[in-house]
């Protein structure tokens, strides 16, 4: 998004690294500090504490790994790290299990059977790289470099991104946009000219009223947010939770609104109706900063709480009461923008409604509202210029989705691969993302893969997507490798280092090494002038007045403090066409969309069917942690949540195994029923990431059911190409 880069540029130039370095309590390596194992009397070599940052999810929490007698013992949070504050989430604490995971890929693999049959032979790295380089050269010669695409997730993909840019393709994508937070970023950008970003710019710690729409904090364990959520509860903040399921966050709420799925927009409009009708908004802020407020005021008048009651099943008085409560605490009120926002295909517009409700609170740049993040400037490595692509990217031909500007559409590249339009995509590099589970409609993903001349998967475990690869490259896990530096936009500025703590147990290699080796085979040496990653990192750090050796000891170095709130007389700036918060958007109007968000009714489930909803468990990340022994021990399969009365009526028991069938006749693996009072009668819910069908991924093969498999239908957001996935209906498959 253009405005994002503008904002980033402004913030980055404002926050260059100064002389003040926060003192660190860590002293790097502590040897011989403790004695171990009295029982066996084995010689004690002592304990090393090595700082790094986590990779079990994508939050990148600072950690300290403990090595006892040369073996990884435990991983704790780094107290100096602003993301973890010395406390990791259960996945991070269980990160030890990633290193010891018996399912890990051990050597490079080449396919010998048909794609997807998981028949491979072990090869040397050199053989694997020769094969890849030969294919990539041929693709470039036959079709042009744009015909290679990279799907990656996580900071580990940084060096492969660099390789692909050097090769000459603009087709670099991640499911984190079109399958996750894309609608939110587009909705906020259209409204404020700025995005929410990750970590989210929500000052939850200081908020007095937090509104969660489907956000299941506590089950979604993005560490800093959960910590701040807990602080807000401690300080007595009002929590308003809107969810068809009585989530953990619902259990913390003063008001729980058991909304009918798919009707969130109606609730948002009704809340705004109350706040405008009762003049509860911050008039001074709106007068100064709102564009098109009169049209908005006129249009919002129709959406009364009584109107919304019919749609949402939420009592009109509860809608009024919660709207007043939000306004009472403004500007220290947050209507959380959510993270996984690809629900119903009108998600960017719903995110716009969330953005406007926040605007009525006047919380932009305010304590307890949406703060102004900043980061630390570490100059990029001085690479030669990347080749420029004449064709442009293939994900969004003719700007079919006019507001999908900033990031590429994963599903767009999949479609281009299938159709060959606007030009053929002939090679995929897949890093750290299990595309058969991450993208809706698995069959389309498989159809696309079958069109490829080259399919490479880089992963740590034999994920389902690895089974479809021509070449599988086993990566070392995060405690065994260096990665790119982390300098996120956040409440504090800092740089964090991921560094190896122990050696990889087999022939696994870090991605920076793979990228460099492949680059060299492709004749792209000039893009890999560094000898090794240490030299690369040290060059970057030295250009900011730091050094790798210093960061190796501390793990995290903080930059100078800046205020994340606007001063009393400081006016916010908005990078929209009007320079204000756009309650009415000409940009949307010109593109043929509603300039002010409108409600459309969701499709109803057929008789006997339930809407399929999915979410997260605190101890797993997507479908990539299921074989970690600590996490597997606590949850080795998912359950399908079904309302207890409904279960009784249709004759299924708690704990019973059933199969689910969706509206297109697709049948799931067997999955355990969780008959519970904690969900509405018109939907079912399951945790994402289970029911994988990779036979190589032994521990998790066929355990639980896969929501992804049942998501054969998706509704594409016409603004930005996000794939709304909560539009599938399932029933119990009695014949199974």
């Amino acid at each position, binding site marked *: 998004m253009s405005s994002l880069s503008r904002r980033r540029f402004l913030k980055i130039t404002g926050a260059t690294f100064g002389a003040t370095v926060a003192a660190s309590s860590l002293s790097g390596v502590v040897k011989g500090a403790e004695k171990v194992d009295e029982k066996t009397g084995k010689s004690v070599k002592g304990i090393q504490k090595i700082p790094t940052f986590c990779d079990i999810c994508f939050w990148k929490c600072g950690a300290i790994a403990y090595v006892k007698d040369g073996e990884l*013992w*435990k*991983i*704790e*949070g780094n107290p100096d790290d602003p993301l973890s504050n*010395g*406390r*990791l*989430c*259960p996945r991070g*604490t*269980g990160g*030890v299990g990633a290193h010891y995971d018996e399912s890990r890929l051990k050597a490079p693999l080449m396919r010998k059977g048909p794609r997807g049959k998981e028949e491979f032979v072990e090869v040397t790295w050199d053989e694997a790289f020769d094969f890849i380089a030969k294919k990539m050269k041929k693709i470039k010669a036959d079709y042009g470099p744009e015909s290679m695409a990279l799907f990656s997730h996580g900071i580990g993909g940084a060096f492969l991104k660099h390789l692909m840019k050097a090769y000459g393709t603009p087709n670099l994508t991640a499911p984190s946009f079109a399958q996750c937070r894309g609608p939110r970023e587009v909705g906020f950008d259209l409204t404020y000219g700025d995005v929410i970003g990750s970590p989210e710019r929500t000052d939850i710690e200081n908020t007095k009223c937090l509104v969660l729409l489907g956000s299941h*904090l*506590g*089950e979604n*364990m993005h*560490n800093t947010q*959960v*910590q701040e*959520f*807990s*602080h807000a*509860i*401690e300080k007595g903040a009002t929590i308003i939770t809107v969810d068809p399921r*009585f989530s*953990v966050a*619902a*259990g*913390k709420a003063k008001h*729980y609104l*058991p909304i009918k799925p798919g009707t969130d927009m109606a609730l948002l409009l009704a809340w705004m109706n109350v706040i405008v009708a009762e003049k509860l908004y911050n008039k001074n802020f709106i007068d100064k900063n709102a564009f098109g407020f009169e049209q908005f005021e006129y249009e919002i008048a129709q959406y009364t709480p009584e109107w919304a009651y019919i749609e949402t099943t939420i009592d009109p008085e509860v809608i009024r009461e919660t709207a007043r409560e939000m306004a009472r605490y403004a500007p220290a009120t947050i209507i959380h923008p959510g993270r996984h926002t690809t629900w119903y295909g009108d998600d960017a517009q719903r995110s716009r409604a969330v953005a406007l409700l926040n605007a009525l609170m006047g919380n932009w740049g305010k304590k307890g509202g949406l703060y102004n993040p900043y980061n630390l400037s570490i100059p990029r490595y001085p690479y030669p210029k990347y080749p420029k692509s004449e064709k442009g990217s293939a994900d969004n031909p003719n700007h079919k989705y006019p507001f999908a500007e900033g990031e590429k559409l994963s599903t767009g590249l999949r479609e281009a691969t299938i159709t060959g339009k606007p030009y053929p995509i002939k090679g995929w590099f897949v890093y750290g993302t299990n595309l058969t589970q991450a993208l809706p409609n698995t069959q389309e993903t498989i159809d696309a893969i079958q069109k490829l001349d080259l399919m490479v998967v880089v992963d740590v475990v034999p994920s389902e997507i690895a089974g479809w690869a021509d070449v599988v490259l086993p990566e070392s896990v995060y405690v065994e490798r260096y990665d790119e530096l982390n300098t996120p936009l956040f409440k504090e500025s800092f740089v964090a280092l991921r560094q190896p703590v122990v050696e990889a147990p087999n022939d696994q290699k870090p991605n920076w090494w793979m990228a460099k080796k492949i680059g060299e085979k492709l004749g792209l040496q000039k893009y890999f002038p560094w000898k090794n990653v240490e030299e690369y990192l040290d060059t970057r750090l030295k250009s900011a007045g730091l050094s790798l050796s210093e960061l190796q000891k501390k793990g995290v170095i903080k930059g100078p403090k800046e205020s994340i709130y606007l001063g009393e007389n400081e006016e916010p700036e908005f990078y929209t066409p009007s320079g204000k918060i756009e309650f009415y958007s000409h940009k949307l109007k010109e593109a043929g969309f509603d300039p002010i968000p409108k409600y459309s009714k969701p499709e109803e489930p057929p008789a006997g069917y339930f809407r399929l909803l999915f979410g997260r468990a*605190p*101890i797993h990340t997507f479908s990539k942690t299921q074989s970690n*022994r*600590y*996490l597997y*021990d*606590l949850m080795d399969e998912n359950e399908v949540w079904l*309302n*207890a009365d409904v279960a009784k009526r249709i004759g299924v028991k708690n704990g019973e195994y059933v199969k689910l069938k969706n509206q297109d006749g697709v049948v799931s693996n067997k999955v355990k029923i969780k008959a*519970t*009072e*904690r*969900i*509405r009668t018109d939907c079912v819910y399951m945790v994402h990431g289970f029911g994988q069908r990779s036979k190589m991924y032994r521990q998790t093969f066929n355990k639980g059911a896969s929501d992804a498999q049942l998501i054969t239908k998706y509704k594409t957001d016409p603004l930005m190409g996000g794939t709304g996935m909560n539009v599938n209906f399932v029933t119990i498959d009695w014949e199974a």
Partner: protein
Amino acid sequence: MARYGMVIDTKKCVGCQDCVIACQAENNVPQGFCRDWITTESKGKFPTIEMEIRTERCNHCTDAPCVSCCPTGASHYHDVGGVILVNHDECIGCKACIASCPYDARYVHPEGYVDKCTFCIHRVEKGEDPACVSVCPTYCMHFGDLDDPNSDVSQLLKSRKYHSLIPEAGTKPNIFYLT
């Protein structure tokens, strides 16, 4: 003498099980076993539901039946803080303590002895919190001396409502849950 105990805020706990994993890693608990666990209790009909999430473990009772029933003296009150420990070398694995514990807090270690929560006494004696307390991302757990009126745990019990688990068993548990 100190009386070590825990005060746990159920308003903040999200049941993420970080405490379970931190304990397993810290204490090298064998795979398939745990010394602490999460209980989620919900009452009522949708959507009017009351839910309490708790992290549970050995209650380090003041009148501990596991100590009084142990035929070898392996289960004992540690001289620091009254923490209940099992001396592995003296334990014969008879499981009398397992039967006597109202909290089901003990298990037989694959090496034959009975094992359970130690309040991470090896950390506590160095001035650190137990692993479960120090890892918790919701800061819901507090460890300290219940006999010291100025300790965090005593202060919390003075200012908040709380309950213990199965008080009717009469074992005088030393873990309290804020509600």
